[in-house]
């Protein structure tokens, strides 16, 4: 294989791709915007939830005369705006109230007061108002219970025979690494899958469609040199996309920290990037991008046109996204065999690396198995390019 010829093909493919709007869009624009587009709604949701907690909810109280102390307590809490309405369901539907409280009976020493909370679960504000009412009523109920215990000359602490505390053994780095690793792995792997896709299609099916492939294979370059040049170009674009996605993610995190919540606490996401982690993550993503570049090129070569290749690659994209979906359900100590599953192994390794608990056996099995898959996929791409029934289809 002549290096000069391979680089000539690589250079031509990159030049050609950088002048193509479709490639610019998938390789540069999407990766730049993707992390922000995912993080922004999360941030907005947090703001919205906070705002809903702080803003008084509009509630109606049915039969307040049956338990005036409760009605007064809710009205004076500052959390609620008491509204008078005639038809509860209609008012809920129209948004005149966020929820309603029906007091079924007044307080007696022998029978508990029954209170029904009426709300619309499909409306965020209604569900949030119902939760606030639930908390306020429970707090008021606890106060009454304590008062009654005191009246019986007993210690109110007998109501809490068990005091529950929790201690998280995961370090701050592990917690933040678990969340960030999950998110970063998903976004970076997605970048590696989609970043080179347009070029892979254009350099194979696209060339067939424009009738340039026949002229190219009539040149003195060997088919393997052509495949290698096209593969390296696809890989370059995929890695560029990964790099842009990572940069965009770092920027989005810098401007959008305190986005992950766990156990009700705000966790500040911190980046712990040692040289070892960066190299391992890079190698892992390089192998993912290489594997996807080889597969995308091989599949696209079967197509007669760009559009046909896109249709062929849709199932592959879905299959490649599956590990991303599964990964969210995989605990932080996955079984060893998972580090041999293509794509999933790289994502799990990245998560481990971010958590700061990488296991050598996982690094080795991920990198070696991925390398093996790349070799197999690339060899089949080489073989397919030799078949005239495929190349001249």
């Amino acid at each position: 294989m002549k290096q000069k010829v391979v680089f000539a093909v690589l250079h031509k493919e990159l030049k050609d791709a950088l002048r193509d709007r479709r490639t610019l869009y998938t390789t540069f624009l999407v990766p730049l915007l993707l992390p922000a587009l995912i993080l922004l709604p999360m941030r907005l949701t947090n703001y919205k939830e906070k705002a809903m907690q702080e803003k008084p909810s509009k509630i109606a109280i049915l039969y307040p005369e049956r338990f005036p102390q409760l009605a007064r307590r809710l009205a004076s809490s500052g959390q609620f705006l008491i509204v008078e309405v005639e038809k509860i369901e209609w008012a809920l539907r129209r948004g005149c109230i966020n929820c309603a409280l029906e007091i079924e009976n007044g307080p007696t020493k022998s029978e508990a007061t029954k209170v029904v909370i009426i709300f619309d679960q499909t409306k965020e504000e209604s569900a949030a108002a119902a939760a606030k009412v639930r908390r306020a009523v429970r707090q008021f109920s606890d106060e009454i219970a304590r008062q009654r215990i005191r009246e019986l000359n007993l210690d109110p602490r007998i109501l809490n025979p068990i005091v529950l505390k929790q201690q998280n053994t995961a370090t701050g780095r592990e917690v933040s690494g678990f969340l960030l690793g999950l998110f970063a792995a998903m976004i970076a792997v997605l970048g590696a899958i989609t970043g080179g896709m347009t070029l892979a299609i254009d350099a194979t099916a696209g060339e067939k469609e424009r009738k340039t492939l026949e002229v190219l294979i009539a040149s003195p370059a060997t088919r393997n040199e052509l495949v290698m040049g096209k593969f390296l170009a696809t890989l370059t674009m995929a890695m560029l996309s990964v790099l842009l996605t990572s940069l965009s993610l770092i920027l989005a995190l810098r401007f959008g920290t305190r986005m992950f919540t766990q156990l009700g606490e705000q966790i500040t996401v911190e980046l712990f990037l040692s040289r070892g982690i960066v190299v391992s993550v890079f190698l892992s993503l390089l192998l993912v991008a290489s594997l996807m570049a080889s597969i995308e090129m091989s599949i696209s070569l079967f197509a007669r046109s760009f559009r046909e290749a896109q249709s062929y690659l849709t199932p592959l994209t879905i299959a490649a996204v599956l590990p991303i979906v599964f990964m969210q359900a995989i605990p932080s100590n996955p079984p060893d065999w998972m580090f041999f599953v293509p794509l999933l192994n790289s994502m799990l390794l990245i998560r481990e690396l971010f958590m700061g608990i990488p296991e050598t056996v996982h690094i080795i099995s991920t990198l070696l198995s991925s390398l093996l898959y790349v070799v197999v996929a690339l060899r089949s791409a080489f073989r397919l390019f030799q078949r005239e029934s495929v190349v001249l289809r």
Partner: protein
Amino acid sequence: MIRVDGLTKKFATVTAVDHINFSCHQGEVFAFLGPNGAGKTTTIRLILAILTPTEGRITVNGIDVRENPESARRQMGAVLEENGLYDRLTAWENVSFFGELYGMEKNRLRQRIEELFALLGIEEFAYRRAGGLSKGTKQKVAVARALVADPPVLLLDEPTAGLDVLTQKTILSLIKTERDRGKCIIYSTHIMSEAEQASDRIAIIHHGRIRALGTPEELKQKTGKAGLEDVFLEVVREQL
């Protein structure tokens, strides 16, 4: 320069090229004359090792095309049916890329492209993207691309099809010039007058077989016809 023996190409049940034999020598223009689907393009594709023959042998400058396709292709430049230019690359970049595939040294490549663009009168289009060029200019760029490494053999598949008269003349004149420089040129056409005017020998090909082969004069003598068009019709009719 080119020797073809018993060349056959079958696609499933269709025999596109059927045991053809011919040779083309240095300083000769050899034309394939035949209707659409006769097997002209398939023969050119086989010589270029784009396709693998079912049977037969092709040698280019003594190199067996099947055994050593890359070395054989290094001896050849080709203009195929479609110009095959990269629309997003400039005319210069298109030609330069192929020069690089032939392993040409940078300075020599630049000099050669300048020469060819001047010869074909397309200097002003050198830095324009190929996608925006006229059909005639595109074909001239494709010809420049085929000639960039100055290979001893040229294969031209209907190089003048659909072009205006001026561009046709430029290309035919270039074919003659390259022949005089000692190149072996195989080109296919279905335009009788063009074949008669530009070629030294003609092979009339029909249904994958060479039905007649010789100089235009020899063909006329053999069939007793005055014009090449009549020769062609006579040869083809005999085979029906």
